[in-house]
């Protein structure tokens, strides 16, 4: 039963992946894609999908698209600009590993936050403490090492979107 629900949830993304990778679309390929999606969903689906309704929720997909566009343009550009300024003014470098609390419940949201931090230049997620809900982040320009300020500067925005998309 769990596996059937997982297959239903993964069906559309996997079919899209199959067709995009194959590079040609016709009815026959679509049927092959459906069969592939069912088999793969049966093999590994229940590891990936916990709640089918979440995968099929269009509001979450909407926020995912918004976040992806916003992240890869505005946030990335800002972070690059900060690092660029540091490169030309190395005296401003003040590296530290700071503790950043997070407040999301699912693994996917946590992974989104952690990878968003790592992918922006200047900050790297070093470790995660799941029990006490802390991320340990290496920050190239640590203006303040207190939890609150670090979170505001590093992950507050990511967490807002991660919460909307995955929680």
């Amino acid at each position, binding site marked *: 039963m769990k596996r059937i629900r997982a297959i239903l949830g*993964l069906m559309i993304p*996997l079919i899209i*992946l*199959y067709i995009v*990778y*194959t*590079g040609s679309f*016709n*009815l*026959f390929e679509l*049927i*092959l894609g459906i069969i*592939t*999606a069912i*088999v*793969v*969903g049966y*093999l*590994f*689906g229940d*590891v*990936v999908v916990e709640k089918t309704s979440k995968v099929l929720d269009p509001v979450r997909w909407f926020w995912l698209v918004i976040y992806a566009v916003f992240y890869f343009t505005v946030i990335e550009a800002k972070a690059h600009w900060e690092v*660029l*300024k540091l490169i*030309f003014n190395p005296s401003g470098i003040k590296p530290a590993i700071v503790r950043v609390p997070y407040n999301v419940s699912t*693994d*996917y949201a*946590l*992974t989104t936050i*952690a*990878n968003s931090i790592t992918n922006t230049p200047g900050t790297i*997620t070093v*470790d*995660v403490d*799941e029990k006490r809900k802390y991320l340990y982040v290496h920050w190239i320009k640590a203006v303040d090492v207190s939890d609150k300020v670090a979170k505001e500067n590093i992950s507050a925005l990511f967490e807002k979107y991660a919460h909307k998309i995955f929680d």
Partner: protein
Amino acid sequence: MKNKEILLGVLAGLIVLALVYLLVSLAIIIVPPQEDNRWLASWFLETTYNSERKELWSASPEVVTSILWDYRGLDTVYETSVFFFAIIGGLMLVRSVKIDPSKLGIRGMSVISKTVTKIVLVSIPVVAVSVALHGHLTPGGGFQGGSIFAVASLLAIVALGVGFLYRRGWSKVRLLGFRTMGLIIISIVIMAVFITGLTIGATGYIMQNQWKPWAPIGYGYLINLGLLGNVLYSGSLIFLNIAEFLAVSAGLSLAFIIMALPREELIKGGDLE
């Protein structure tokens, strides 16, 4: 402060421009396209999908797959059997190891690596199946698809622990079963034309794909599925690719699982599973 930042932006832009100019003007060279191939390459390119010379063709536009599974098909079959025996050899080494799935590595990596691996775990097999199913049309094929699939198993072993695959029922016996099933399908496909020839009294060869003037039995290459249109399946190539995909993905996954068994289990040994 504001002026300094603008200056900085302009400076950074100029540096990037200078680097791009140097790269484009110095590092990029134009290679004139090669006009002619060697005669062997030309021969294969002109015959594999040349419907005017059906006595030589293999009905597949993909030259590499045609050579692998048609022109030198027996060689590939032997390679597959050698690989099968290598896996059997590996199993012989660990034959006395009793595996207790509940004790196998359950911790794996951090939650971040685990989550990303889980997403990749459903994406890789889809790509693998696509590569395997289109082996007769585009670069790729059964072995390539199977290897891609095995990467998923390898990632699962490393990031989620060996116990993950074991607890999902990927036992030695079952994987070996799939591996053997692939080999049996290959055997049936390569023998079918020969045996049909024997029964109806016409010439047919082992590993034959398309009909020849002196051996008038073959697999055909195009099927009309009505609403779905005409589908080119290139005779035996697609069946061999699917079977090889099954065999290689199960075989390599099994090899990776054996390699990842914890050292204590290997030293301890025990009864046959």
